[in-house]
């Protein structure tokens, strides 16, 4: 197959067939499509393909190198696993959205220029919001609206940044961008929104937990990791990122401790894991960049696994609130087991994936002398075990018995979770396979007795801290609540401001407005005559009058032509 054709077209166009097939045929098609994309991926030669000349600039539809291939592999894996997980979903919209969304993320990863990147970037935004709206609740609708405005805004910033960059003599090619130009700064913000930088992060915790059971799993795989890819491509070694990333690893874990919705807890822990990747990109050495992208690879898998297990709980019990759950290991033993594998992976237990990827970033921070950053990362490592590694399985499956007795997750969900779990353990136990795919040669050795011992001490004593706090009753109980975060600025303050200004305006119109109306009454009346309801311009006109006017214009044109 020609490498000139964007690989993303296969899932994106292939999605159109999904509504036409039903039942087993649809299931087979949904699984075969990602498999076909994977085969295509394996056959791709390295290099730049699909070059188009447009307005004096060269577009590169396909740039195949080690970095884009690494993300390509894991995105296609994610497409397959999420399709398997979602086989029970009747709603064709969700399948189509997932394929278009994952496909366009794939397109963006292989985009060799900023314009192609922009097009796929926006398509991920538009397709992914359908997975939120598919929940069909008022809450989901509103959260989706906030989400899509922010995502499209990220695209606008990317386009504006690219335009400034090219205008300032830069190239449209998507390589290292850097912060030297204003365009670069805009693009950093655009990527930062997708990576959920501090203060740009709230769309993630706001929207992901409102999506459907399967939608959240799909969402967790693509958008943020696309942001990480773009950051690794455009801004490696940007020191600002070290600070941004360190902040990202630390502050969300405090929120995760007090959050009740367990899928929202996972959204906060996503933010925390993204922080490790952003720090790695900021450090920018070979080891750090390898660590950042390897951790992105591992994170996609274990975060999907965790969201899958919580999705199964939501499907069977109708809730993922810590206050309502507990004791589910009795009804859902397999789901419990898979959730624990995901929890061990995100917590970086030896033999699980996080152990061999996150430690590369930690090691790079230490060897480059970022002592403070290293301490923050270590704190975040203990914290992530605490809230994602222990809290999630504990409150859902153990804790006090909620009395809920339900069925185990359906078989296709269990198989999807099992495959993902095998990948998590596989990466952790045989890291050489993943290391061989990384963009730079790897000399890092994760399994030294010292490293294993250090990590086990950290984790076991974090677990002990949790047990002591729970047994002494100091551990904060789960509570039904909303915890204000930065989104309060637009959801709370912004709304209050809008209401207050509306009140002031209407009060003004009621009193002082009379004077103003007298003053400019004449022009207001004229405006109303032309633009108000029942006015000339608001009327619907018959097509005939339109045709008449076109004819008059054409006749006038003819007349002037002869004159």
């Amino acid at each position, binding site marked *: 197959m020609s490498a000139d054709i964007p690989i993303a077209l296969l899932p994106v166009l292939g999605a159109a067939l999904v509504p036409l097939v039903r039942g087993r045929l649809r299931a087979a098609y949904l699984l075969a499509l990602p498999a076909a994309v994977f085969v295509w991926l394996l056959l791709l030669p390295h290099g730049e393909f699909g070059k188009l000349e447009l307005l004096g600039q060269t577009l590169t539809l396909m740039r195949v190198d080690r970095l884009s291939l690494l993300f390509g592999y894991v995105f296609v894996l994610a497409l397959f696993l999420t399709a398997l997980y979602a086989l029970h979903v009747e709603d064709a919209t969700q399948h189509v959205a997932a394929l278009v969304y994952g496909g366009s993320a794939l397109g963006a990863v292989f985009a060799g220029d900023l314009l192609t990147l922009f097009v796929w970037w926006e398509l991920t935004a538009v397709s992914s919001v359908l997975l939120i709206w598919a929940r069909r609740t008022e*809450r989901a609708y509103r959260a989706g609206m906030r989400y899509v405005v922010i995502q499209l805004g990220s695209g606008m910033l990317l386009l504006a940044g690219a335009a400034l960059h090219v205008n300032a003599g830069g190239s449209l090619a998507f390589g290292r961008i850097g912060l030297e130009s204003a365009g670069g700064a805009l693009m950093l913000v655009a990527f930062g929104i997708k990576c959920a930088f501090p203060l740009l992060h709230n769309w993630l915790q706001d929207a992901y937990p409102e999506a459907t059971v399967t939608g959240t799993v799909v969402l967790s795989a693509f958008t943020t990791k696309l942001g990480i890819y773009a950051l690794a491509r455009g801004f490696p070694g940007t020191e600002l990122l070290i600070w941004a990333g360190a902040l990202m690893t630390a502050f969300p*874990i*405090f*929120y995760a*401790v*007090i959050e009740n919705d367990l899928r929202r807890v996972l959204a906060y822990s996503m933010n925390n894991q993204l922080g490790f990747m952003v720090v790695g990109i900021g450090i920018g050495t070979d080891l750090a960049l390898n660590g950042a992208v390897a951790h992105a690879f591992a994170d996609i898998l274990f975060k999907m696994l965790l969201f899958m297990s919580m999705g199964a709980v939501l499907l069977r019990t109708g809730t993922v609130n810590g206050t309502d759950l507990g004791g589910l*290991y*009795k*009804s859902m033993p397999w789901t419990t087991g898979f959730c624990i594998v995901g929890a061990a992976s995100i917590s970086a237990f030896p033999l699980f994936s996080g152990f061999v990827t996150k430690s590369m970033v930690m*090691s790079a921070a*230490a*060897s480059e002398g970022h*002592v403070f950053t*290293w301490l923050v990362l*270590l*704190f975040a490592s*203990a*914290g992530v075990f*605490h809230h994602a590694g222990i809290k999630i399985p504990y409150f859902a499956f*153990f804790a006090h*018995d909620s009395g809920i*007795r*339900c*069925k185990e997750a359906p078989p296709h969900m269990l198989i999807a979770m099992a495959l993902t779990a095998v990948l998590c353990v596989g990466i952790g136990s045989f890291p050489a396979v993943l290391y061989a795919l990384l963009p730079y040669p790897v000399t890092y050795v994760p399994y*030294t*007795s*010292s490293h294993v*011992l*250090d*990590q*086990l*001490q*950290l*984790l*076991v*004593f*974090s*677990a*002990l*801290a*949790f*047990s*002591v*706090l729970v*047994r002494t009753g*100091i*551990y*904060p109980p789960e*509570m*039904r*609540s*909303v*915890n*204000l*975060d930065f989104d309060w600025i637009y*959801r*709370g303050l912004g709304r209050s401001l809008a209401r207050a200004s509306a009140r002031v305006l209407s009060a003004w119109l009621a009193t002082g407005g009379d004077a103003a109306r007298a003053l400019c009454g004449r022009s207001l009346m004229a405006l109303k005559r032309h633009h108000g309801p029942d006015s000339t311009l608001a009327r619907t006109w018959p097509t005939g009058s339109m045709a008449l006017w076109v004819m008059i214009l054409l006749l006038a044109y003819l007349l002037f032509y002869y004159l």
Partner: protein
Amino acid sequence: MPNDKRYWLDDPRNVTKLYRTVWAIGAALVLAELLVRRHEELAFAGWFAFYAVFGFVACVALVLAAKEILRRLVKRPEDYYER
């Protein structure tokens, strides 16, 4: 689905057993430091039981800060944004 089966973890004595086992594992890991030759990129990370103490203190501090400071500041009723 009625399920009256007693599980091993339903007995509080077993939970206590489990809790003590985790303490025993922790103690063993700290003692193992005497046997393992450690190489740390940062000197202070080589202090005896550094990771054990850090992990314990970090988690207690995390929970207390989240409970006593953050929750007091940001907790609102569940329908806060719907009102």
